[in-house]
């Protein structure tokens, strides 16, 4: 059984590596399209042509793009993300702090939204067709349908401007105690939780309802099982695969998709770092950020796949 799981993990990891390679290729050449001569930009308008040419050579910019792709890939493998063009610092150093911030935000949002999403999704499925179910549906459809910046501005209007409970901006460096921390994270977390959990509620509800229509659920009903038992013991274990998959998709959004929230709340995360990198044409930084987003997405999907396999005895022990 363990050998089988090991084989499955190895296979998924292999697929993940191939996907990463494709993504790396796409990211590298997409950023290559960015206009402007990097050497020129780095040295400024006043630089002599000789200096520019020298820098180009030092940065391998005079070599074919494909070769530079291989250099870059080699660097990535050995943990060398390159140096930022904009301020000549190690990309790894630039990213480290921001990534920690982003992960913190993602973690707190996950802690907050997953239990809520699961509860709402499962209970809505349990009472399918009831007023409660309809209310949950209206809520999720509305949140899915409105742009994120609207959710954010509404949150600011309500909690910061109108109620004056929370600060509108996050500054993560002057935190004193837990209460402060909660206050600082509150606005972005509330906004993101809304956005992320709506999708999760929908998918959870759909997955549970799918299993509620099966013959074994009817059988459980005819054995005298209560509604609670039917949903929790019979439907839910079989809906776990699709639910975890939906969770992974939604949560992957928390790193790469949060630009708008980070911008509005002035939160120093990786997404904002990347936006800034785009405006300064900082190629190594853009590429590294993009790779981080892809790795996190693929990791989450991998975890979801593994959970689905563990939850399904058919796949687990054959």
């Amino acid at each position, binding site marked *: 059984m363990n050998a089988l799981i090991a084989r499955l993990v190895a296979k998924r990891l292999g697929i993940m590596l191939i996907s990463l390679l494709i993504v790396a290729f796409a990211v590298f050449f*997409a950023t290559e399209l*960015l206009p402007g001569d990097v050497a020129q930009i780095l040295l400024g308008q006043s630089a002599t042509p000789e200096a520019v040419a020298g820098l180009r050579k030092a940065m391998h910019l005079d070599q074919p793009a494909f070769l530079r792709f291989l250099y870059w890939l080699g660097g990535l493998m050995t943990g060398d993300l390159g140096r930022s063009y904009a301020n000549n610092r190690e990309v790894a150093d630039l990213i480290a702090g921001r990534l920690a911030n982003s992960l913190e935000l993602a973690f707190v949002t996950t802690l907050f939204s997953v239990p809520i999403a699961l509860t709402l999704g499962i209970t809505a499925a349990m009472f399918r067709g009831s007023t409660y179910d309809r209310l949950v549906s209206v809520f999720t*459809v509305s949140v*899915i349908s*409105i*742009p994120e910046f609207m959710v954010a501005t509404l949150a600011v209007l309500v909690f910061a401007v109108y109620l004056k409970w929370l600060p509108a901006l996050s500054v993560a460096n002057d935190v004193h105690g837990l209460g402060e921390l909660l206050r600082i994270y509150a606005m972005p977390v509330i906004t993101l939780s809304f956005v992320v959990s709506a999708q999760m509620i929908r998918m959870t509800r759909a997955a549970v309802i799918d299993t509620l229509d099966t013959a074994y659920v009817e059988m459980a009903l005819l054995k005298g099982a209560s509604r609670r038992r039917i949903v929790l013991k019979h439907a839910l274990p079989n809906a776990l695969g699709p639910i975890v998959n939906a969770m992974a998709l939604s949560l992957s959004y928390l790193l790469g998709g949060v630009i708008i929230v980070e911008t509005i709340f002035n939160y120093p995360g990786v997404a904002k770092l990347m936006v800034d990198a*785009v405006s300064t044409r900082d190629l190594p930084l853009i590429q590294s950020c993009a790779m981080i987003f892809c790795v996190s997405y693929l990791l989450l999907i991998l975890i979801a796949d593994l959970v689905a396999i563990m939850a399904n005895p058919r796949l687990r022990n054959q």
Partner: protein
Amino acid sequence: MTITNPGRKGRFGWHMNAVGIIGAAIILFWMVVAIAAPWISPYPVGKIVDFDYYGPMSSQFWLGTDYLGRDMLSRVLMGARYTVGISLAAVTLACFVGVTLGMIAAVIGGWFDPVLSRFLDALNSIPSLMFGLVVVASVGSSMTVLVLTIAVLYAPGSYRFARALAVNVNAMDFVTVARARGEGTIYTIREEIFPNIIGPVLADFGLRFVFIVLLLSGLSFLGLGVQPPNADWGALVRENIGSLSFGAPAVIVPSIAIASLTISVNMLIDNLPRRIRDRSD
């Protein structure tokens, strides 16, 4: 609303509930606005018509004025053109490419299917807003770039969806019968597969349209979408975000416009008309 044919036994026709009708009506309204905007706008979009900025609603300016004193009604009407137009073009392109490739992959199978699937899955792992950001920043923002970028982003999802549906239909006996008869791939796709996946594909089209409207609005909100002096609804929100604290119509109206469009599309998808052919014999 039920259109029935009284001449025959039983009930026939199409039935749609009230929520679906409201959704369809709002979508239709915005479509008409998008087409007719230049003729129904009371003022030229770029013209400063009021000395006051962030003006309130009045009989002269129905939806108030923006941060420069331009007429909001005209700007929202013209904004519909960009938001609806770009989104519709992008979603059509994405779904056309995605659905066509999906059906081909399902019917042909062989090496074509796994290779294409793996490649598009990998593309899917790039966060859409990020990708849009990089492309728009590198080649500049124009209508064509926006449409193509968004279409590239959403085609893999459409492919995945259509392929899954087509694989199911492809396993049905009537497709096997067509194959045993000696029918070619094109006939099989056009006559046997497509008619049987069109319903879910249309729903997916609508959902994808919503996502695209939101993505486009997000890009514009970040200043990377439609460029001034033109503005789609997302850009209108960005321009007038300064009036948020005192709730001027200039920031509220475009927000409502976006929400009304996306929510009504969702309302329509969840309540699509049902065909009724119920014979009582």
